[in-house]
């Protein structure tokens, strides 16, 4: 019995939601015959109960943090408090163009969040407009670009440096911002190789994009030296906030010398990932970059709050309206409930969990390149002869969501594991047991896992060669 598509639950003329009532106007009179659609879109025709059953049962075919340990490295799959959903509901019915005298509460919240995020990152000004992490990256790099342009250096500074361990979004962003990307090899300690960096640095470099801790989960210990070198070369230092969960409350990118930082509110600040978004990617900058931030930001005016469009050197807008506002509400609540000490303790326990799990996996026979104290995540390798993919699929059979696999690229068969602080000790132990058990499984079992999932391994080659991208599509 294959699970039906919503189109297969459809029956001609069946009706579901009926939000409108009253005699229908003649479309030809309203719009003119020439503007009318000739054939209706083939949308499903289902009743409300079928709709509910379809999506309820579909949700049973989906794992989430609410159902299982989800140690997807670099994604910070922590618990998303249910109370945040109620918080968001309180602000659902605001229109972005309503007179701002009637939206003062929303602006106040944004203003406070700007201030809080600036404090947490050690930055001077924050925009809440970017809709996701990568969007924040683009915003940040465009700000850097505007800065260089303003100084007349945009034609010379054409290069952005990224470590070879960086998230793929870093080079992709730099490229979208019109830069040439050069990779800087990591040293044998997994950190940026200072000598390699020096070789690449020069008046042609606009920025260095770093994640710290980096994607190996290692803190870049020479960060102050890197910062010194970057600034000496006239480059700006960009902080990819994907890994901020490791250090919040313990250190601030601003204090490390970073000029720009983006945050992933859906990672660090517990906004739900939603199956792949919407997220929110605020960007903080040091004072010298503030003039280039997107407009508008929120400013205080007397007892009230207003939108600030007065930034003539701004890069403009990167999104309509004011960003993913309802995500901001959730992040505001998270920060307010934890406070400074709660954030700090959360980071410490995220790091503790990662290190504890690293230890357990080593005991089970996994290799850990760069084996030293990690931060909130670490990269493990299976023993010789095991494929990361097979282990991932085996884990699924044992009821866990796999870690990120085959990333970072500089580690072969990488398993990138980020447990987060909201997982319990016994969960880490059960996961380690499962990881250990996998190494005892017959090769054949591993290569064919999983077995009891709604579907088993899927034919990816077929999907790539003859993609069928819609229900009505003939592949």
């Amino acid at each position, binding site marked *: 019995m294959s699970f039906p598509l919503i189109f297969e639950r459809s029956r001609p*003329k069946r009706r*579901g939601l*009926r939000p409108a*009532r009253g005699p*229908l*106007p003649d*479309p030809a009179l*309203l*719009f003119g015959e020439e503007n*009318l659609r000739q054939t209706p879109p083939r*949308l499903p025709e289902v009743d*409300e109960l079928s*709709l509910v059953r379809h*999506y*309820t049962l*579909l*949700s049973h075919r989906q794992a*989430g943090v609410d159902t299982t340990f*989800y140690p997807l490295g670099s994604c910070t799959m922590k*618990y998303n408090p249910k109370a945040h959903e109620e918080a968001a509901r*309180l602000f*659902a019915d*605001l229109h972005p*163009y309503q*007179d701002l005298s009637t939206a003062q*509460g929303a602006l*106040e919240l944004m203003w406070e969040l700007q201030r809080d995020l600036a*404090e947490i990152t050690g930055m001077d000004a924050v925009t809440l407009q970017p*809709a996701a992490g990568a969007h924040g990256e683009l915003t940040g790099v465009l700000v850097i670009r505007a800065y260089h342009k303003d100084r007349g250096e945009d034609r010379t500074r054409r290069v952005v440096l990224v470590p070879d361990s960086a998230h793929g*979004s870093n*080079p*992709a962003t730099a490229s979208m*911002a019109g830069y040439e990307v050069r990779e800087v090899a990591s040293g044998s300690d997994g950190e940026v190789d200072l000598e390699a960096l020096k070789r690449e640095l020069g008046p042609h470099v606009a920025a260095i994009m770093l994640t710290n801790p980096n994607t190996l989960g290692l803190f870049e210990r020479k*960060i102050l030296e890197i910062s010194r070198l970057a600034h000496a070369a006239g480059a700006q230092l960009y902080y990819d906030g994907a890994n901020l969960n490791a250090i919040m409350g313990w*250190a601030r990118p601003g204090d490390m010398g970073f000029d720009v930082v983006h945050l992933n509110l859906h990672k660090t600040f517990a906004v739900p*990932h*939603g199956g*792949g*978004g*919407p997220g929110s990617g605020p960007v903080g900058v040091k004072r010298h970059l503030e003039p280039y931030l997107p407009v508008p930001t929120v400013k205080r005016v007397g007892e009230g709050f207003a939108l600030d469009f007065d930034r003539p050197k701004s890069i*403009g*807008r*990167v*999104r*309509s309206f004011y*960003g*993913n506002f*309802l995500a901001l509400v959730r992040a505001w609540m998270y920060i307010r*409930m934890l*406070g400074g000490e709660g*954030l700090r303790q959360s980071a410490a*326990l995220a790091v503790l969990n990662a290190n504890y799990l690293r230890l357990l996996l080593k005991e089970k026979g996994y290799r850990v390149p760069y084996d030293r104290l990690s931060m909130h995540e670490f990269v493990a390798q299976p023993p010789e002869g095991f494929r990361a993919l097979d282990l*991932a699929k085996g884990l699924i059979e044992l009821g866990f969501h*796999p870690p990120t696999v085959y990333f970072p690229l500089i580690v072969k068969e990488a398993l990138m594991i980020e447990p987060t*602080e*909201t997982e319990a000790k016994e969960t880490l132990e059960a996961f380690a047991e499962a990881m250990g058990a996998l190494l005892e499984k017959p090769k054949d079992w591993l290569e064919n896992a999983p077995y009891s999932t709604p*579907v088993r391994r899927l034919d990816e080659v*077929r999907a790539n060669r003859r993609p*069928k991208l*819609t229900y009505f599509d003939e592949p």
Partner: protein
Amino acid sequence: MYAPHTPEEIREMLERLGLSSLEELFQDLPQEVLLPEGGLDLPPPLTEAEALARLRALARKNRPADKAFLGGGVRPHHAPPVVSALAGRGEFLTAYTPYQPEMSQGVLQAIFEYQTMMAELTGLEVSNASMYDGSTALAEGVLLALRETGRMRVLVSQGVHPEYREVLRAYLDAVGAELVEAPLEGDRTPPLEVPQDVGAVVVQTPNFLGALETPDPLAEEAHRKGALLVAVVDPLSLAVLRPPGAYGADIAVGDGQVLGQAMGFGGPHFGFLVVRKALVRQLPGRLVSETVDVEGRRGFILTLQAREQFIRRAKAKSNITTNAQLTALMGAIYLAGMGPEGLKEVALLSAARARRLYELLLEVPGVQPFTRPPFFAEFALRLPRPQAEVRQALAERGFHAAAPVPFDPHLALFAATEAHTEEDLLALKEALKEVLA
């Protein structure tokens, strides 16, 4: 604090690691940057009850706009609670990108169904899994057209949402492409000549002033010059109006807020990006294909990932990673729940009520038409007083209306939806009369 650790467990775990305090976990951090305890200057922590009480107090400083007469990219259509009830189920809410298809068929199938519905609505072939919003969908759609044509100029009608144009400008500036704006004549885009080096022509219909454009000649002209036509559309309007595929658009983009989403002070909603099949390998973002598993069962999987950043890095089609999956799911649930008939009813009744509102407001002394019919659910009027003053005066009377039109301070936008009653419309008319008296 949501961490489960008991003091005893922390002690045990540290001991196993050979450490004696949590501070030691941070030994790799340079002393110069290490914050002391209490190092962050944030307000003291609140309990959940306190935080919610504060949020309720903040919420009371807003006046909800569920009966607003505002458009401009966001409109107060009825958002059926079943949509958020289903999309808000924990499994959907707390999943991430479906990298592991065996335990992510829920999200993958939902995307596949979404792709189908967006293709149907727009009359084009391939929809990605979603974009952040309408403005970024437009920017990505135009970049796609430039990649495909290898050109670096874009011709954009001034009828395109002003904020979308601003976002597009920022994205184009980044890669050094040029944005050329084509002014409106009155409320509509005049016939345009497309220069030879233009890679993308952008038109919005219904345009920002609500008016229906006639994009066919523009599509022909664009194609004659080797450019692609990018149409910015209102997905709700496509229940009754000609879809982009019918007038020759190569790329359709827009925002899904009108499809059962909360207005949310502007976000999150979702953006959509749908293209002709020939453009699929230029498409940014996630894409799901049907396939089969080892037992021959139907299943769904991310496909053509070679376009994406985590594979291609600097050579990716876009840096997009997180998109707007949950809100796109809401859009799909809304569309499935409405069906073609329901969607048509909402579209027609919204348009009818907008037309009625137009007629009523034109009876108010001093109010002049700017948008001329046919329009969809929004229209611009010329007011005898500046829009900003009128909006504020209406707000004081409890009405949300008269959104700004950037290029003329005396123009104001009004909208209506299926959720407005005749009484609502009459009340606004009376209020406007009072304000303009």
